[in-house]
């Protein structure tokens, strides 16, 4: 299809044709730089001494400092990192355990009310957090679950479980039904066929979807902000807490921004094919 978007060029006489267009490549590279410069700039701030942080004119060359890191560690901010990992990790694990069978069932079986159930699952994903945070706040305050790991892990299920079921279902649907049928005629029970044939084939889909779930939990702010507290503060929540009465600690914020972005960077490179699918709820196959 590539060749058709621009008018095909007249064939060069004898040279083998060039594979790449330098102009368009350059354009995309420029665009990428433009897009990523702000992120890069934030990373720089993490190492900038307070004095030149927002100096006018902008200082490009400076002696990097680790003061901001020191401040964060002295004030126990590494706990927030650990909290983030625990909460995101636990909720993702729970999602995999609960969601995999459901995703499979939605993809494979014609159930009564399947469409309505599936729509319900979608709706919980789509619902804005502001809708659910109020009842959760009230319920949690009654149950004493505010500012607990369990509290956040559970509330993250609202969007991640439904996301996982939807997207993994679309992965399931890619696998031909005949594979299971073949396994069944070959002498495996329904469960055996699922474990021996489908699960190994679904593993890439499960990994991709679960990693996306992890990132969503990792990035989540509102629930963590309102339902967490001093004990269970996650990285995103640490950001506004650096806006103090003594002023805004930009360098420290930048570090948290940087640390928060690192897993995302890894994920986009590892999962690139699956991200589109994930973010479109499986509507586009990446």
């Amino acid at each position, binding site marked *: 299809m590539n060749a058709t978007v621009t008018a095909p060029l007249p064939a060069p006489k004898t040279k083998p044709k060039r594979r790449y267009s330098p102009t368009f490549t350059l354009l995309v590279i420029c665009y990428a730089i433009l897009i990523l410069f702000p992120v890069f700039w934030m990373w720089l701030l993490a190492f900038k001494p307070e004095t030149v942080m927002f100096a006018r004119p902008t200082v490009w060359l400076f002696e990097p400092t680790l003061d901001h890191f020191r401040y964060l560690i002295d004030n126990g901010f590494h706990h927030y990192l650990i909290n983030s990992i625990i909460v995101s990790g636990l909720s993702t694990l729970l999602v995999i355990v609960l969601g995999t069978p459901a995703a499979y069932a939605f993809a494979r079986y014609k159930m009564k009310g399947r469409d309505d159930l599936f729509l319900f699952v979608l709706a919980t994903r789509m619902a804005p957090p502001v809708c659910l945070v109020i009842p959760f706040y009230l319920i949690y305050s009654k149950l004493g679950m505010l500012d607990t790991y369990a509290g956040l892990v559970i509330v993250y299920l609202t969007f991640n479980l439904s996301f996982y079921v939807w997207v993994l279902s679309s992965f399931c649907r890619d696998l*031909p039904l*005949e*594979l299971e*049928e*073949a*396994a*069944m*005629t*070959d*002498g*495996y*029970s*329904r469960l*055996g*066929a699922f474990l021996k*044939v489908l699960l*190994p*084939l679904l593993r890439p889909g499960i990994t991709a979807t679960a990693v996306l779930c992890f990132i969503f939990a990792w990035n989540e702010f509102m629930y963590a902000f309102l339902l967490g507290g001093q004990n269970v503060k996650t990285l995103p929540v640490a950001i506004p807490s650096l806006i103090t009465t003594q002023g805004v600690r930009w360098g420290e914020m930048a570090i948290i921004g940087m640390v928060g972005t690192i897993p995302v960077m890894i994920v986009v490179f590892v999962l690139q094919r699956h991200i589109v699918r994930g973010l479109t709820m499986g509507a586009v196959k990446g």
Partner: protein
Amino acid sequence: MTSGLHLQSIAKDFLGTRVLHDISLAVTPGEILAITGPSGAGKTTTCRLVSGLEMPDEGEIFLGDTQLTALPASKRHVAHMFESYALYPHLNVAQNIAFPLTSPARNRRYKRADVEAKVVELTRLTQIEHLRHRLPGALSGGQKQRVALCRALAQDAACYLLDEPISHLDAKLRNELRGHIRRRQTKVDAPTLWSTPDAMEALSIGDRVAVLIDGRIEQLGTPEEIYFSPATTSVARLVGDPAMNLLPGAVAAREGALFFEREGVSLALPQPIAKRIEPVMGHGLYLGVRPNAMDIRDGGGPGTLQMSVYAWEPFGKYAIVTAKLGEDLVRIKTHRTERFAANQPIAVTLDPTSLVVFDGTTRRSL
């Protein structure tokens, strides 16, 4: 004590539509029953009913004394080769073939060496021995089909279902494999169902052939019966390369003989046929003429049909001339090698001994 596979008055509905009507079949151990019919006729559904992937809405299936309908697919011990191959993408060729042999439902434990030996034997037979360690994703369509075939044949099953098993192979291999499979399956103490849309293949491979059209068995018989006396026009239209020509017309009696008549055509029918037609005198009927039972004659003359050439396809040893008779297209397989131009008038003779006559309304053979 019965043996073999029995389908008793099977019916199957999909979404309120009946796709199989009153299917009754019996296949004895060591027999190959070929099921043929156009796509969508119910061949695959029949196979799936036997292997337990679908449940019949009416009727019973027995294998020996066992009522199969009561058993889930995993306990039926049926080797099912899928039209779509259904190879396990995460297993290599050898593992795919070995998969059913190591399943929990097999009541016989295979030694590793036995499995290995079976894999080697079958892959050699199908000429994919060198691909044993490839994953299915790295195989061509024809190679995949052979793996699926091996996986089915490797099993010591109670019944074999082969759904279009060799359609994607080249002609030479196809012929050889037909030979090999026939030899294997006639020695095995289990019945084999072979489904194929290619009627000529069905006639070649089957001890008997069932012609399935629109979910009904139109004819069940030996290959010779199917070829020489098709029971209905639908069967006739399916069998042969190219298939039989069917000319609508009527019968008239003149001068003590019976004539097949239609616009511009009047053809004396030979005695044996005439006898069979008498009960339906005056009805419309179809005259079935095989393409190789006609030839093109120089010049006209009595008993010839006047047609005009529609298209000419030369095949070297013979040519197929499609000609227009009135509004109908007729295919003639001729050994004449000269070129026939479109719209050229020709005179066609036909061999009266190989004619088949069908009732115009019931479309059944007379």
